[in-house]
């Protein structure tokens, strides 16, 4: 009996460790993900004015601060009971698309490409973005340029790349100038070329990963994501839909205020990360996944020409409900292309320059819920306030939290398939980390805004004795 540990899981956003238990024959009997940090945003924001929530909760995550800003300002819009100006909604979506591009580029190129291009079993000392720069300079350059495009769009629109303060309750605090619009439009074609080139490249190599595809979280779950009124992909707005592994829609058009009818949460003894599930099916049958793969599984179409062609091909290859978590990578690249096309559409609309971008109001409701898609999945901010607008209660359901149960199952599946306790090799454990990376978890977000996870992997004997930890 033995325990293997991966501590920390690297090239992910946040702190987590993985523990793997082995029996006397060296076979895996169990595996868990532990998210090891907790921060307490839900508690320490009590008593603060609601309009401070966007800039405080943005600090949950430096990778997707825009997602928290948007879920938060939407919850604040709800408390103010305002309908924000059309242009403000367009500008928020534009900003959000910039974030999708940068975050998806980061996940694919900076974090996962070292596994995909240098190899799952390659030298761990070089298996990183700097190794990529040395060995695949053109691909690395593409990744840096695509991420830069997204970050720069955020900076030009909102003033800063990380934690900007442009989005406010009621809209945004300044209209878009034609000069900034033109600057973004001028850079867009090059970014689209990179997104297309990367997709073509990935489709060319994906079949080499047959064993990973077959064993990376390749199991039926439900999927959840936001869609518009006709079932098209939505990132900024939209309502929640659940689809099952057979492709049936099991719940649809759930409004933000109704989320609690569909989602319940349980606390796990082994993690600071809570585990949500689809309420009608209960725990653990109600396990569902969110994020790029889930969004493309849930939606009927993307709604932009090039992404729609890719969407059709994706489902033609792998079916209506694509199961393998390995395909998060593929879905992420399709979404990056979608986000770029969407930016082009929004910027081409003359209404984007309208000067009416903010509604002003006080407290007109004592409760507010904001829901948006973060790059890694559905994000919900739920606040209750008193008559003066001071926060009384906060619940944050974070993208990676939704995937908690599915990630745990995926880790177990990968461990069972790839790990042989009698001849442990680093590449076996790297595959366990790689499946976590495929989900692109944002653990700094995920512990209910309550923390930065640390993922380790530990190999435990059936009696719980620590058998092994990989140390380099």
């Amino acid at each position, binding site marked *: 009996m033995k325990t293997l540990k991966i501590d920390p899981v690297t090239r992910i956003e946040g702190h987590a460790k993985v523990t793997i238990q082995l029996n006397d024959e060296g076979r895996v009997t169990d595996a868990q993900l532990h998210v090891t940090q907790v921060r*307490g945003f839900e*508690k320490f924001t009590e008593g603060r004015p609601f309009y401070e929530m966007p800039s405080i909760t943005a600090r949950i*995550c430096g*990778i997707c601060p825009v997602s928290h800003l948007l879920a938060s300002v939407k919850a604040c819009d709800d408390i103010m009971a305002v309908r924000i100006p059309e242009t403000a909604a367009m500008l928020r979506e534009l900003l959000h698309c910039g974030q999708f591009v940068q975050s998806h580029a980061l996940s694919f190129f900076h974090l996962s490409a070292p596994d995909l291009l240098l190899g799952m079993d390659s030298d761990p000392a070089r298996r*990183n973005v700097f190794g990529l720069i040395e060995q695949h300079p053109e691909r690395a350059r593409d990744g840096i*340029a695509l991420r830069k495009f997204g970050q720069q769009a955020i900076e030009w629109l909102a003033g800063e*790349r990380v934690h900007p303060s442009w989005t406010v309750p009621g809209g945004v605090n300044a209209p878009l100038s034609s000069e900034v619009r033109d600057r973004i439009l001028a850079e867009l074609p090059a970014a689209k070329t990179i997104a297309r080139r990367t997709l073509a490249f990935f489709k060319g190599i994906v079949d080499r990963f047959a064993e990973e595809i077959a064993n990376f979280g390749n199991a039926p779950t439900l999927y959840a994501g936001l869609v518009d009124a006709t079932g098209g992909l939505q990132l900024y707005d939209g309502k929640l839909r659940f689809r099952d592994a057979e492709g049936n829609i099991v719940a649809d058009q759930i409004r933000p205020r109704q989320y609690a009818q569909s989602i319940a949460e349980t*606390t796990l*003894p082994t993690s*600071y990360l809570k585990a949500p599930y689809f309420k009608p099916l209960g725990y653990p049958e109600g396990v569902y996944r969110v994020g790029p793969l889930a969004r493309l599984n849930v939606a009927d179409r993307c709604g932009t020409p090039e992404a729609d062609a890719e969407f059709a091909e994706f489902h033609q290859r792998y079916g209506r409900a694509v199961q393998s978590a390995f395909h998060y990578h593929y879905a992420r690249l399709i979404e990056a292309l979608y986000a770029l096309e969407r930016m082009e559409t929004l910027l081409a609309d003359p209404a984007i320059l309208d000067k009416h971008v903010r509604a002003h109001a006080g407290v007109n409701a004592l409760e507010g819920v904001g829901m948006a898609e973060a790059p890694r999945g559905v994000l919900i901010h739920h606040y209750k306030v008193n008559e003066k607008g001071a926060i009384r209660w906060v619940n944050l359901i974070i993208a990676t939290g939704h995937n908690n149960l599915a990630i745990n199952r995926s880790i177990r599946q990968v461990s069972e398939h790839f790990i042989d306790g009698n001849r442990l090799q680093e590449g076996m454990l790297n595959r366990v980390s790689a499946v976590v990376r495929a989900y692109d978890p944002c653990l700094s977000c995920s512990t209910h805004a309550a923390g930065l996870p640390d993922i380790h992997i530990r190999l435990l004997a059936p009696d719980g004795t620590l058998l092994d930890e990989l140390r380099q």
Partner: protein
Amino acid sequence: MTKKARLATVWLDGCSGCHMSLLDLDEALIPLAGKIDLVYGPLVDAQEFPKGVDVTLVEGAVSSQDDLEKARLIRARSKLVVALGDCAVTSNVPAMRNNIPVKKLLEGIYGTIPTDGVPPLLKHAVPVHDAIKVDLHVPGCPPPAKAIAFVLGELLEGRMPELASKVRFG
């Protein structure tokens, strides 16, 4: 060819925004790859903090027992420790929990407090210099990429950077 400098990056209780600002060096990362070996951090695969590190950039406050132990190890194995960003410099957002007792904080969030395989929280989230000696403080939420590039450039040249006009809090 001169020996590459051994750089480590660590993120304790923070949001990763300072690491994002490091990646915001964009194309400047390419020449940097020729000058440094990134030997530890969330962007690379090392499992253990190595010995003989030249410079360690620390993002985040010291908030859990794990953070504290990691900070001490970093200090013992690094020539220079840089507190990167407001959380490392002042404990910033992580410290917003400091007036709430830890037990109350966790009960408020979880009901049943997780204890298995997760590190206990310290009573207070504190700046890095409360736990270990820090050689350079670089404030900002996050510090802009330009400031990080300047710091790395100066340190690689063997100079202690003069930051006065280049950074601010927030």
